[in-house]
């Protein structure tokens, strides 16, 4: 009986919505430069090897030229590497956050049709559904998917 109660309590804990909060991005060069095209992705979203790969190839940055001068590149690279999360499962040093195992798992129920909504268009557009993503808040409670109600994702 006692074990059953403990098991039920643990189940309740797991059924609570995910509270995902990340540290706020602080580096100003990073914010200024990277936010010109997309959200300033938190450094904790990737491991350091992946960030190094990204920053060493800015001329071909996910299909576009995002090159910066040497000094800015170094400032941003150091900031990302120093604040990266290295226990992320990423053996291939994948640079697409949206292709990481934890990401695909969290977004497995989002259909292509949902993503194609004009306010979303791509899974890398976090703020389309996670309104407070730029503040590091990805809480499940605060998700609002354009064109969808909670029960119909």
């Amino acid at each position, binding site marked *: 009986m006692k074990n059953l109660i403990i098991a039920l309590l643990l189940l309740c804990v797991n059924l609570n919505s995910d509270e995902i909060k990340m540290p706020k991005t602080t580096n100003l060069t990073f914010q200024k430069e990277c936010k010109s*095209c*997309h*959200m300033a992705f938190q450094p904790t979203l990737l491991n350091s090897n992946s960030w190094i790969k990204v920053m060493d190839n800015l*001329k071909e940055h*996910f*299909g*576009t*030229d*995002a*090159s*910066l001068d040497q000094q800015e590149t170094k400032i941003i690279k150091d900031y990302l590497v120093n604040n990266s999360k290295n226990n992320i499962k990423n053996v291939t040093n994948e640079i697409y956050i949206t292709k990481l195992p934890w990401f695909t798992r969290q977004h497995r129920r989002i259909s292509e049709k949902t993503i194609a909504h004009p*306010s*979303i*268009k*791509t899974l*890398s*557009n976090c703020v*389309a559904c996670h309104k407070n993503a730029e503040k590091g808040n990805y809480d499940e409670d605060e998700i609002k998917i354009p064109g969808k109600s909670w029960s119909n994702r």
Partner: protein
Amino acid sequence: MNKTILSILVLASFSYGVEPSVALKSYMLELQNQAKILNPNFLNFDAKIGKDIFFQKQIVDGKEISCTTCHTKNLGSQGLNSKTNKIIDPLSPSVNRLRLTDVKEMKKWLKRNFNDVYKREGTAQEKGNVLAFILKN
């Protein structure tokens, strides 16, 4: 009465356009000098040619792209980054007073966006022509 005055002022500002910033003047001079070195017959930048460069469609990775893809055909409107869906502030300096006021920014974006559309860095003459076009619009 106030509406009339306001409309007159707005119209007046459009007819006068925007004065080039100190930064833009110095950058255009730099580009002019570079253009003359490459082409001794070069005289002045041409906003019409700049417009052609801005509107011309290229095929990159099997898709059509031009500057207007992200910046739209009306420089006074907001643009939209076609890859990330992020809003781009208007390019027109008469609508967005920050445009064409920082040499580093102008150099950075001209280099990047020429690469995105034309797969090469623009020549000094091409850059100057594009800037002349943006200034007028």
